[in-house]
């Protein structure tokens, strides 16, 4: 009876009750989110808007006042050969790092899909570098590679049977090899973890069907594993690309951007003009240019991800 009575006329009750409760709820929700909005406005939106003003004025600790300078800050960055070179270094290092990390991560993930004794311990050891601060990673690799105290050259010499005198931190191309080595050591486990998750999610019956049909190992990998794994690959590569283009810590510790400006990345370049030379308006202009370039990459990658999701 009751049900029927409510079913007969449910809306008038709701209409009568909702307005006061809804108003109260709405106010309460606003009350709850207001502190968060204020914090975001204060520490994120305000600096962003402030930085737009800084772009067009002189904001340099060594030059009094904040005179309007138009596009001068942008021009100084765009026409600075060090800025252009650091962008090139960033692109090359990022591409190399991510490619090697992907290939190694995939190889290790494939090796770890099968269960065997000690697998858990090995996986635990493999992912340890992920928990280490990049500054510590850079310091550790610098200590390993630095002449004359680092043991690397000595060990290589023992292996090769002749003296090895590589200056890993100051001699091209070995300084880049050292930077890639440190990055790959730390971030391959990230690729490995994500790809392993993707591999274990592939339904076993697909492999069983392929086996029954007599499909070879390579074809199985290429036509089953890779298509199933593609979304995870895209995700892992996207994350790593976005992280790798900010490369700073290991450069700061291992090479100091040198020799000359040989190992300057964009982040290191911006740090130098902002916090070594204190040309804050020029550093801000550089940061905005870099942000826009990064956004292009981000939009491209996100579209690819969404496309894969749709398909």
């Amino acid at each position, binding site marked *: 009876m009751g049900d029927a009575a409510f079913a007969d006329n449910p809306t008038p*009750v709701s209409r*009568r*009750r909702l307005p*006061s*409760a809804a108003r109260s709820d709405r106010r*309460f929700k606003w009350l709850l989110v207001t502190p968060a909005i204020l914090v975001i406005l204060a520490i994120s939106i305000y600096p962003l808007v402030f930085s737009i003003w800084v772009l067009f004025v002189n904001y*340099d*600790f*060594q*030059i*009094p006042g904040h005179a309007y300078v138009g596009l001068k800050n942008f021009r*100084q960055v765009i026409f600075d050969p060090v800025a252009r070179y650091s962008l090139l270094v960033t692109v090359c290092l990022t591409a190399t790092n991510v490619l090697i990390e992907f290939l190694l991560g995939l190889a290790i993930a494939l090796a770890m899909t099968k269960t065997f004794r000690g697998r858990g311990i090995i996986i635990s050891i493999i992912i340890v570098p992920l928990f280490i601060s990049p500054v510590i990673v850079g310091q550790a690799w610098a200590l390993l590679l*630095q*002449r*004359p*105290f680092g043991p690397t050259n000595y060990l290589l010499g023992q292996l090769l049977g002749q003296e090895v*005198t590589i*200056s890993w*931190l*100051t*001699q*091209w191309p070995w300084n880049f090899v050292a930077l890639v080595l440190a990055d790959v050591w730390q971030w391959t486990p990230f690729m490995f973890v994500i790809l392993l998750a993707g591999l274990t999610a592939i339904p076993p019956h697909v492999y069983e069907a392929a086996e029954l049909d007599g499909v070879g190992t390579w074809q199985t990998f290429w036509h089953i594993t890779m298509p199933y794994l593609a979304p995870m690959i895209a995700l892992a590569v996207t994350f790593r690309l976005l992280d790798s283009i900010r490369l700073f810590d290991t450069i*700061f510790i291992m*090479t*100091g*951007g*040198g*020799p*000359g*400006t*040989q190992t300057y990345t964009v982040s290191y370049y911006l740090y*130098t003009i902002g*916090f*070594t*030379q*204190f*040309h804050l308006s020029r550093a801000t202009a550089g940061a905005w240019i870099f942000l826009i370039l990064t956004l292009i990459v981000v939009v491209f990658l996100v579209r690819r991800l969404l496309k894969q999701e749709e398909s």
Partner: protein
Amino acid sequence: MNDRERRDFEAGLAREVDSWLRGEPTRRDFIKRFGQATGMLALSGAVLPPFARSALAQSKMQLEDPNTPLGKAQAAALKASTEGPTDGSAYRAVEAAKQYSGVNLNMTYEAGLQALDPRNFSGPLWQDLTGIKSTVVELPPPDMYSKPISEHIAGSSAYDVLDLQPQWTPALADGGVIAPLDDYIAKYMNMADLEDYHPLYKALPTYKGKIWGFFDDGDMFALYYRKDIFEDPKLNEAYQAKFNKKLEVPKTWEDYAQVAQFITDQMAPNVYGAGHFRKAASPGNQFDFMQQFRANGGRFFDENMKADLANEIGVRTLENMKAANAASIPGNNELDAVSLWAAWLQGKIAMMYSWPPTGRMSAGYSQSDKAISFIPQSSIAGKVGYAIVPGGHPEHAFGFNKALAADSENPEAAYLFMQWACSPPVSLARCMLPYALRDPYRISHFKSELYGELFPSAPEYLANLNNSANVGLLDPIMPGAQDYQLSLDRMATSVWAGADPMEALKTAEAEWNATTENLGVDSQKAFYEEFLKLPGATPDNTVEKLGMAVQL
């Protein structure tokens, strides 16, 4: 309560009860917990400060055994502060500062060893004497410049006493970040104490006719060499046979490279002729280039304020530095100051030039404190000689001024601390701390018998630092100094990596000109001309050339 209100109430109550039964937090929960949190916060306002104060409070004062030279110096500092002479700067500062008992001074110091002095010695002692507390804010070198400016722009009054590099004085004085001290000096200081500064350092805090701080760290480069190697008869014989001259401590940079190469050829891999801090972005290359370039006759700018680096003198300087690198310990170009010390203290290097702590570490004195245990014990104590660097004009690299923050809420108390800390007896005790990196800078430091007792060769060490200051050269003190020096570091490290010296010099020259134009050619020219008036600005204008040399 009418029907509608009752239904609303019951519906609301039902929702609350249902949520509670499901274990969900309800609005009531939220308000209750928010109230609890606010109450806790209010309560913590009263309870936490004592804990916070305790955590931030100065360490307990570390005083040495009064029978040791350092203990005696500390006792003398204490006596000068409490008993006088009553016209001494230390005594006057303490007496005047007692009226500010209870206030707290925030003081910036370079992070690490430099900050141990105010934490372990001068800060607690000052508190005992005056009741003025202090909080040490440790900052890495770039932040020692940028943070005071940021806080000044924000008007936060965050700092009272600032440790600053002399090269920053013009920018910070013009920017209103630091305040002049002249009125306070006239009121409180014994003027004789100003005359106790070595002439090279006395003028460093002076800008536009006013005094903007007290110089407080004599960062003079000097040559440290292994006496046992230079006195080795077989080595001397071989050198004589090869070069037809006596093996002696080099006086020119060409000789330096030649001697280093000879020692390396004779003694490697046990000992190498030299070692240098050549790592990119690690202070070293720029100072080394500036001292050699100027000693070779180079000038930084021409009459029109155009950079004057890319010339025969610049090439000669870089070529000679390259020759010295080639004669050095393997990995020379990757070393920073600390790793160079490690190689030196282990006896792997026959010559090096560096900052004054090198002498104290070589004697094993610094390592007597556990704070400095990150460098090896000295295996060369008693074997080290001291000399002025080749070329005869060592660089005064960095150094520190103590300056008064213009926004300080307790400017007089801050000033009085600075006067006291830099007064002759107190600054001597601070410079003698084994863990501190403060280096002698007063004439009374160089003449100090107590300092001379710290280790057997301390008198020669002090005499060499004094003699080096007599002929030493200053880093350019002008806006853009960081930019100019960064360009030199990039130039030098690119040459170490194989770049053509002239091309590298041209790149640096272009960067210098861009910096000058950015900052304003006329204003930079005025700053540079002001700098050139300082004793030690050029080899023709050293303390010695001006007839002001200090003879011990």
